[in-house]
């Protein structure tokens, strides 16, 4: 066997690649679920992940008041305390991301679907009034008051001009998604306590070696990420395949109009879909902070692009495809950077995507959330 870097370090690259790949896969599920149901690429999903990392940060540093360092060392916890804390942090992260995703749907997408007009008009009216008032007064509080006063007449006017029940063109959803993405990350960048700085999250789990495999130490945090991601994915698959709501998700994915006629509450199903994607992203966010101990307002950007790539690679709209695509992307990136050097990491990831799409335009496993057999 030749003495190449990739061969010498194969198993180590595999472990770290699978860990990062698991996080890609969890985030990819959010893209895939929403695409499967709405045929919409939710580009703001990366920010839902970012919101989750901030949820995890708040949970550990504020709710549990754990400091970054205790006597110059990490604030390690052990035994049951550790498990309870980690579960609690994960639940809070999921809550943040889940609520974030539902709010996102309500604000950025539902008005465009043509049945959330009143709410959309109010939001739009407020924003219009706010922006116009900025021209005359430059004092945030006064602007908000002016905007609030002007909201009612303007939203009334909007409703008169743009009649209810009209669906926006597909492109509008995409623009709304990109706009929402920028708005969320910039809002955190501007308004959070340390703005655009990097935030550290307290490290509770001591990164010990769990076991040694093929001469490579497998660290406990990597093991938790891989196993945790797999468990969450199994739970999601069971939910979609075995529960009533899950059946609704599949039905709407197949044909929204027919499901509506047959009595499925399509709006509710869409909310559930976004919430599921958000919860998965929240889980991914917590696992991410477990390994990397840090977050930032724009942490979602690169990870979001990679996860979206993973979803497309596996076949967007396909839950198993997201898993396969995520893990594969994590591995390919690591192997590729061992062969060509670290700066080629992203090039390799996207070249693999291009090659796969050339031969399998619908991704490795095809689009299938809507198919009868998932």
């Amino acid at each position, binding site marked *: 066997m030749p003495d190449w*870097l990739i061969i010498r370090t194969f198993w180590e690259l595999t472990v*770290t690649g699978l860990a*990062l790949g698991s996080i890609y896969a969890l985030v990819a599920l959010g893209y895939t679920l929403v695409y499967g149901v709405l045929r919409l690429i939710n580009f703001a999903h990366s920010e839902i992940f970012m919101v989750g990392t901030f949820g995890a940060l708040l949970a550990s540093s504020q709710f549990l008041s754990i400091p970054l360092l205790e006597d110059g060392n990490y604030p390690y916890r052990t035994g049951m305390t550790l498990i309870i804390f980690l579960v609690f942090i994960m639940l809070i992260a999921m809550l943040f991301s889940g609520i974030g995703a539902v709010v996102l749907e309500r604000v950025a997408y539902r008005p465009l679907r043509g049945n959330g007009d009143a709410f959309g008009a109010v939001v739009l009216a407020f924003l219009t009034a706010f922006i116009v008032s900025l*021209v005359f007064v430059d004092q945030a509080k006064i602007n908000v008051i002016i905007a609030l006063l002007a909201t009612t007449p303007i939203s009334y006017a909007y409703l008169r001009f743009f009649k209810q029940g009209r669906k926006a063109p597909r492109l509008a959803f995409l623009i709304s998604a990109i706009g929402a993405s920028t708005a969320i990350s910039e809002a955190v960048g501007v308004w959070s306590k340390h703005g655009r700085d*990097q935030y550290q999250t307290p490290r509770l789990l001591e990164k010990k070696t769990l076991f040694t495999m093929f001469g490579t130490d497998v660290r406990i945090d990597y093991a938790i990420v891989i196993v945790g991601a797999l468990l969450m994915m199994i739970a999601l698959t069971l939910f979609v395949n075995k529960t009533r709501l899950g059946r609704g998700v599949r039905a709407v994915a197949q044909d929204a109009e027919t499901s509506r006629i047959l009595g499925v509450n399509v709006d509710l199903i869409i909310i559930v879909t976004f919430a599921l994607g958000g919860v998965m992203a929240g889980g991914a966010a917590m696992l991410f902070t477990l390994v990397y101990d840090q977050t930032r307002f724009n*942490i979602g*950007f690169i990870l979001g692009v990679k996860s979206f790539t993973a979803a497309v690679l596996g076949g967007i709209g396909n839950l198993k495809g997201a898993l396969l695509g995520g893990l594969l992307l994590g591995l390919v990136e690591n192997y590729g*950077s061992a062969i060509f050097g*670290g*700066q080629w990491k992203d090039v390799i990831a996207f070249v693999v995507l291009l090659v796969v799409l050339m031969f399998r335009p619908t991704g490795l496993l095809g689009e299938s959330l809507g198919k009868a057999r998932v």
Partner: protein
Amino acid sequence: MKKSVLRVGASMLVLSLVGVACGGSDDSSADACEGNSKIAFFGALTGEAGNLGINIKKGLDLAVAQHNEANPDAQIDVEAYDSQGDPDQAPALADKAIADACVKGIVGPAFSGESAAVNAKFQEAGLPLITPSATNPDLSKNGWDVFHRALAGDDKQGPGAAARIVADGKTKVGVVDDNSEYGKGLADIVQTSLGDKAVELNSLDPEASDYSAVITAAKDAGVDAVFFGGYYAAAGKLAKQMADAGVTAQFYSGDGTLDVGFIEAAGPAAEGAILTCTCAPKDSNPEFLKAFQDANKGEDPATYAAEAYDAASVFLAAIKDGKTSRGDILSFINSYDAAGVTKQLNWDEAGEVTGSAVYAYEIKDGAIKGLGLIK
């Protein structure tokens, strides 16, 4: 039909309002300066390496505050252009600075990448600049008359860092950079200076979160030291992940890492790291140290604050000397020769300052500690 007319009308109304908004804020295009002269800060105040810019701004603020106190009739304002250290955002801000006739000089641009992106603009506009921090050696090779540097470049820092690494007895040094103008430039110089003791580990993406690929390569090569060319946020992540992966190699880096942000990001893994800088230690001038502490609630001046103070002092000296146009101020700087708080301030044709001291610093007990001059 009627509806679409309404809609067109509404959009035109919105557009005209936007037009009013833009027109309203565009009052800086006047030719002559009305009001106080300004010295501008140009660099990152927020973003990945914002702390370094904040240090610079504090040095500038102190110099201007002292000037304003001594000269009540000739007040100077500080204008800040926050580029976030991003070469893509810098050009628009540079245009803004150039268009403001009150801006007489620039303390900055803070980083090498943004300097490469905008210095040609400043050259064209004849707006003099003194950077307290951009150390890429190529910056002074463009024939920019307006360019001055208040500290030695990386062509001095790189060999200094390499000398320190060799003096520490390291024989196999992994060299990695963040692919930025500054980081890659410095890492390449260090690598060249180390010769066959260097192992190239290539670049990493400072915005990425996972550096395991680079770390695996470092582990595989069996390095006893790692030199990182880049800024503190990425350096912190790298040092931390190295320690987590069980790499015991000594961590070295340059002036971009010389910030408490590195210690925050790396946690206990920062301990023992050795950083180099051509910037002066905080206690090299007791008078400046005291003035800075008094102005900043006892806080010590951090990386580049003293250099920024020096840079600002030169502009203030020019203005005090009665120079008002950018051209006069530029020729004043080019012939300037006086002692600053960090060194003798006197520039050669290329804009390089005389003196080439390289200092070493160590992270000890969670703080930056000076180790003195290298060599």
